[in-house]
């Protein structure tokens, strides 16, 4: 059973556009993480959000944790080709990490 659904699954946009990726669940998590994975590499942690309603910014990336701690979003402003990759959310429950289905982003120059 996949507990974390991400949307969209694929996204291809032009450089300079904005985009939002969603991560949704029916379960509550103690915290939620976002990772980015580039071809041939393992995922790399971008951010951890812990408190319901929390918003964190990492340069052009804005992460939000839902008030009920069941969902999250990632917004990228003025996307650049370097943002291309697979974005994964992961909900944390005790020691277990439950990963989302992934969003594959391609930013065209």
């Amino acid at each position: 059973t996949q507990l974390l659904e991400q949307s969209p699954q694929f996204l291809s946009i032009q450089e300079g556009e904005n985009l939002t990726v969603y991560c949704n669940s029916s379960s509550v998590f103690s915290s939620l993480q976002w990772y980015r994975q580039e071809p041939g590499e393992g995922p790399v942690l971008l951010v951890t959000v812990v408190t319901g309603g929390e918003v964190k910014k990492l340069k052009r990336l804005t992460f939000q944790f839902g008030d009920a701690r069941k969902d999250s979003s990632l917004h990228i402003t003025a996307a650049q080709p370097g943002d291309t990759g697979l974005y994964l959310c992961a909900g944390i429950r005790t020691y277990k990490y439950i990963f989302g289905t992934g969003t594959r982003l391609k930013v065209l120059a």
Partner: protein
Amino acid sequence: DVKVTQSSRYLVKRTGEKVFLECVQDMDHENMFWYRQDPGLGLRLIYFSYDVKMKEKGDIPEGYSVSREKKERFSLILESASTNQTSMYLCASSSTRNNEQFFGPGTRLTVL
């Protein structure tokens, strides 16, 4: 520079062979994990270990076993490889002090 290394980047095996995937971390992390990654399914947890000689089943342990004899090393074993175990295998480690997982580069296993 922190590092998680995996023994092979690419591996091709035949059905029925015994397969060992090795993972080593140099961060003195207590927790180690094995995932498999398939398109459209994200990462699925196979096994994890929170201490030497300790192991816990993840979501898809069938057909796999693990070994953790030393803190820095976590091995994934396919006792009798099957074609449906063709996948990308990712190892990760984390500290009990925070929740950041560090991943290795992955092993792409093909079972013919």
